[in-house]
């Protein structure tokens, strides 16, 4: 026991090394950033421009926000919400309906607040219902796959599979295409949500419970933290994040269709896969109890950087989707290797 040295007696360089020893995964992620960055500077035209970096973060924002929501689900040991794009789809349709028709009452047509609240409410309801079934002991994969079908179906049915258009000028432009202090609104939203999520996870009882329940459901139950309420809350958080992203995306496009988030979303294909990739690339434990939304945010930016570089190098969407797939595989392998060394395996 005498070999233990108090942390504050160490010189700065040793402390720095210790910090990264404890955070192997973070270190790997940061090194990859560095490699990407240097490669970008020397081998890619137009890489080192402010416009390009703004574009990277802007790309990262859409799936980053959803991934932050999903991180709560994954950290709490409830695996994944697989109805990500379907939740976004029905919420987007709801928002566009509100903007275009005011849900049947012409007075409300184009009312941003009502449309936004309606979309978020749909997110809350779908999150609560799916969380309820998972909390009751349902398998999250099965429950949310079922939820995915139902949500997408309702959205498509309601909108007759048509594109719902609403014309500019409208009240949601500031969120869709507006910017503030040189950064787009969606980027600001990403930054604020990332900070808020990190504070919640680190410094609130709820955040602590997410980690505890995720680390061991049975012990969580024994200490009075049941997964039932936890599942409902985390699935709701995740669904609301999806709803918000859907609103921002629809506001940008001035239109919505139920399959907006399925094919060719943004630049890298399927939304659900992209968001799950973000959580995985960030190095969060699939089994729960280990990780953070900060990692997820970095994961989002990393994926956006890779994607951006492939765009600048002239790849089209097929190879880029392969790139995202490779990143998932790579991150799972790296995580598996280092998790063994650094965490108790008993």
């Amino acid at each position: 026991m005498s070999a233990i040295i108090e942390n504050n007696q160490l010189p700065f360089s040793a402390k720095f090394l210790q910090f990264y020893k404890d955070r192997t995964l973070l270190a790997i992620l940061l090194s990859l950033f560095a490699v990407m960055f240097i490669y970008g500077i020397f081998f890619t035209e137009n890489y080192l421009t402010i416009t390009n970096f703004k574009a990277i973060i802007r790309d990262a924002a859409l799936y980053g926000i959803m991934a932050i929501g999903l991180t709560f689900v994954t950290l709490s040991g409830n695996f994944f919400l697989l109805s990500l794009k379907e939740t976004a789809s029905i919420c987007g349709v709801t928002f566009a309906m509100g903007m275009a028709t005011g849900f049947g009452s012409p007075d409300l047509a184009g009312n941003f607040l009502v449309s936004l609240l309606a979309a978020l409410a749909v997110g809350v309801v779908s999150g609560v219902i799916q969380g309820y079934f998972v909390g009751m002991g349902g398998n999250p994969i099965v429950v949310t796959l079922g939820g995915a079908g139902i949500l997408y179906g309702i959205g498509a049915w309601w909108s007759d599979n048509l594109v719902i258009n609403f014309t500019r000028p409208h009240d949601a432009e500031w969120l869709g295409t507006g910017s503030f202090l040189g950064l787009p609104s969606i980027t600001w939203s990403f930054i604020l949500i990332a900070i808020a999520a990190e504070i919640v996870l680190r410094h609130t009882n709820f955040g602590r419970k997410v980690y505890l329940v995720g680390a061991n459901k049975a012990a969580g139950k024994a200490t009075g933290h049941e997964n039932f309420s936890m599942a409902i809350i985390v699935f709701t958080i995740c669904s609301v994040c999806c709803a918000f992203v859907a609103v921002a995306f629809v506001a940008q496009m001035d239109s919505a269709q139920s399959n907006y988030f399925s094919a060719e979303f943004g630049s890298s294909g399927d939304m659900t896969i992209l968001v799950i990739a973000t959580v995985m690339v960030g190095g969060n434990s699939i089994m729960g109890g280990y990780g953070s939304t900060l990692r997820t945010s970095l994961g989002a930016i990393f994926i956006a950087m890779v994607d951006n570089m492939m765009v600048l190098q002239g790849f089209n969407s097929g190879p880029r989707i392969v790139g995202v797939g490779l990143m998932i595989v790579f991150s799972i392998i790296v995580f598996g290797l280092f998790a063994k060394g650094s965490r108790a395996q008993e």
Partner: protein
Amino acid sequence: MSTNPILKISKVSRTFGAIQALKEANFEINEGEIMGLVGENGAGKSTLVKIISGFDPGFKGSYQINGKEVKFETPSQAEESGIAIAQQELSLIPNMSVAENIFLTGAKVKKFATLNTLAKMARPYLDEVGLTEVDPTTRINLLSVGEQHLVEVARLISREAKILILDEPTAALGEAESRRILEMVERLAANGKSIIYVSHRLDEIFKITKRITILRDGVSQGIQETKDIDVNKLVEIMLGRELANMFPSKADHISDDPKLEVKELWPDGVLEPVSFSAFKGEILGLSGQLGSGAGEVLASIAGALQSRSGSLTLNGETFLPKSPSHAIKKKIAYCSSDRKKDGLFLGRPIFENLTSPALGAISKYGFNFGSSEDNYSRNLAKEFLIDVKRMHDESGLLSGGNQQKVALGKWLSIKPDVLLVNEPTRGVDVGAKSEIYQRMRELAARGITIIFASTDIQEITYLPDRVITFYRGMMIDEHRLEQIKTPVILKEITDPFNETNL
């Protein structure tokens, strides 16, 4: 009895890191003999069994079969030499038929065999273990647990095992089923098989064995002829003499101010509703073997196990906890027997474990910026002798003893009125054991009512002020202070109704 032993082990020792699980063990068994292997928890029984069955090649000492020195690297090598083990957790596949399970490895079976062929092949083995009326095409999960044990043994016999190790085969069984197992053991021995019978149930040991090997603290205490000794003598050899000073002294007297009254509690695993009271500041022990219901009673007081009926009265309030969080609100803390399963968050730091039941106490308006949690967890750690410098380490990195201290210590954070502990020192080394006993006594002296359940006979004799004994789901008797005596309790938890006529 002067024949050469078929299996002989001499001067075997085994260390795991700093812990010496076996110091010097000798063991032998003759052909057609039933040898009992007894010892308290942690005496090295399971280590010895693992060595014999080839699971643990890392030991020192000599291992001979038929007079020839052998060295097994894997269990399958041991099996080739005719040594097979039926473990407590059965390795049968529930959805497959009896016959398929028996010939699971496929040895001796043709490439294409129908279920009928297998059934015919299985018949003689099933007859041998006494499953004459069982159809070999039945699925395993339709059989009783006792019958499943017999199938497991039939499988071992089918692979021509000559030496069978039965590790606590009756631990989870009722009376009638246990009897079938014992009958089978005797029949197999008569057919020339050698049987190593490991059990906590001393009545069974006396009933069927010819000789008994007793292990204590990793040392074998010579081989006893069963007919030459009685229960008292056996227990004395098992426990040794010098253990009493590991335990803090008991209370001078028991307060007559009932703190917790348990009325008509009736969880699964208990035959009839149970009522008792626990007094302020006492340590009450619930004694019983696995399946006796003692642990179930404890879990249902904590709301971790549903009770069909009944109520608790604590601090003038009468209620029946529906969940652990309900019990926690009423200041009832429950430390379960399996800390890895539901006692600890192994991947999370120690301080998070310590404050996990009392997040409300370390935060303001749901926010927690660390400083109050830091103080809180440090105080808890100091109180339970946990190294304060390791507070940010994952709890999974701690030794068993320290893990148990964290699992137990975390409950002080809710300032409990009643502390329930199931198996307070399972898998814990002697030093930590003693510390935990000391801590429990101090907490009781502070006025906390402690109720613990244990299968460890030393613990149940020396730690509590009062003992309630359980046997197969029934409450048997109660003893106080100096009336708590090992032989009496042993008798009550193994054979209270004189079924074996020792």
